[in-house]
């Protein structure tokens, strides 16, 4: 297994090449060949007719970020500042607040990402210990001014339109399929159903306002699609 040094020689000029006409014909034959091939095979054209056609990016595409929610509609994010620290562009700004449910401890009162600073490296997704920040395949991020590029919690929170048909779908994420937290049997407080038990044990203090009426369950749109 070795590398070999090969000295290349400049090819000799033939008479046909000197008069150049033959080369013109050869070159034109090549380009005309491509042209005719494309004419007869329009479906095989490589052009992606954006915006009517969208390129299919992979399930690891690093696009706009989303904040995931638990089953009781609270954000998974516990404002631990890991993503803000891991970000090389310092584009995430978090302010923490105390969550009324003791088991959740903290939540972000402010979570802003400046999309015009972010370099879409995905380090925040790698760093999050709660799998709370994911990235979607949404790359349509153009703005008329800098202020509208700073996304806060309402814009960043995951919406059904992100994963529904025609939506961008999930991109770079910490796991595919089932959450390793669930598989590990880690206690992930998933909210209200557990709250009475927690209150009984004296572990949790309920300072939350009564929950809003639950909207009807969304029809068959598996979260792990894509």
């Amino acid at each position, binding site marked *: 297994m070795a590398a070999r040094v090969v000295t290349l020689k400049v090819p000799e000029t033939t008479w046909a090449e000197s008069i150049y006409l033959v080369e013109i014909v050869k070159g034109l034959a090549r380009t005309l060949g491509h042209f005719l091939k494309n004419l007869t095979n329009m479906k095989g054209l490589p*052009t992606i007719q*954006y915006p009517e056609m969208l390129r299919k990016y992979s399930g690891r595409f690093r696009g706009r970020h989303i904040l995931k929610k638990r089953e009781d509609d609270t954000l998974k994010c516990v404002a631990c500042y890991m993503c803000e620290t891991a970000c090389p562009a310092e584009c995430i*700004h978090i302010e923490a607040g105390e969550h009324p449910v003791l088991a959740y401890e903290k939540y972000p009162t402010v979570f802003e990402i400046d999309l015009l600073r972010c370099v879409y490296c995905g380090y925040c997704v790698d760093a999050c210990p709660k799998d709370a920040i994911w990235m979607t395949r949404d790359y349509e991020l153009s703005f008329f001014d800098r*202020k509208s590029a700073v996304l806060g919690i309402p814009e960043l929170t995951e919406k059904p339109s992100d994963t529904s048909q025609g939506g961008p779908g999930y991109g770079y994420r910490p796991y595919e399929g089932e959450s390793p937290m669930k598989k590990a049997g880690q206690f992930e407080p998933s909210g209200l159903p557990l709250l009475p038990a927690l209150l009984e044990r004296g572990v949790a203090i309920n300072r939350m306002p009564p929950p809003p009426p639950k909207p009807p369950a969304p029809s068959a749109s598996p979260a792990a699609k894509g």
Partner: protein
Amino acid sequence: MKITGPSLPIAPGKIAPPIAPGVPSTGGADFLTTKLDVAVQWAQSNSLWPMPFGTACCAIEFMSVVSSHYDLARFGAEVVRFSPRQADLLIVAGTVVDKLAPVLKKIYDQMSEPKWVISMGVCACTGGFYRAYHVVQGVDEIVPVDVYVAGCPPTPENLILGIMMLQKKIQSGELARHREAKTFVPIRVGEDPVTAIPAYSNAVMAHVPGRHALPGMPPSAEDEATPGGKREMDAEIAAARGRENP
């Protein structure tokens, strides 16, 4: 900088003078002018001639946009002109550093009206993750930007979306009024630690119309005195509008 244009009162039925050279007027005009504006705007938006001021990685993505997979020619913007005299859309693609800033300014000035600027990539929009001693923290310190395209580098579709947004903006007639250079608004994501240098101030950038000092900075004596300073510009625009709508 004086605004050119007649200073006589406008008789009804006549075409109003342009507010600034080369910019079609839309105030109080008659049917013909409105239709003409629409036609002109449609033509402008569908035949943008980009000047790619490509510096870094975004320039490579721009090259992908003009290649066969994405084909900017479908939007009429195929004629990529590297001479600012022949272009009307300046796409700043890539990081602009302090050494390059005067060059960018010169190129922008050499373009004739109407002209638009797309800032492509986060380095051009805000400096990206280069919070450093030689990087301009956003080209809107120097030139007025119409569309900011995010991404590092933006996918080619994103750039095409940016161009489409610009086309819509041109067709809506919003840009027909004389645009003021956008000032650099430091976005407070937490504490933005980049110190705005008291640098690209009015005295230096005096020939960019409407350019005024960075917010939070007291206007200098130079700013007050320089012709083309904001106060004078506002007064002239108000006077021109007053003439149109008596």
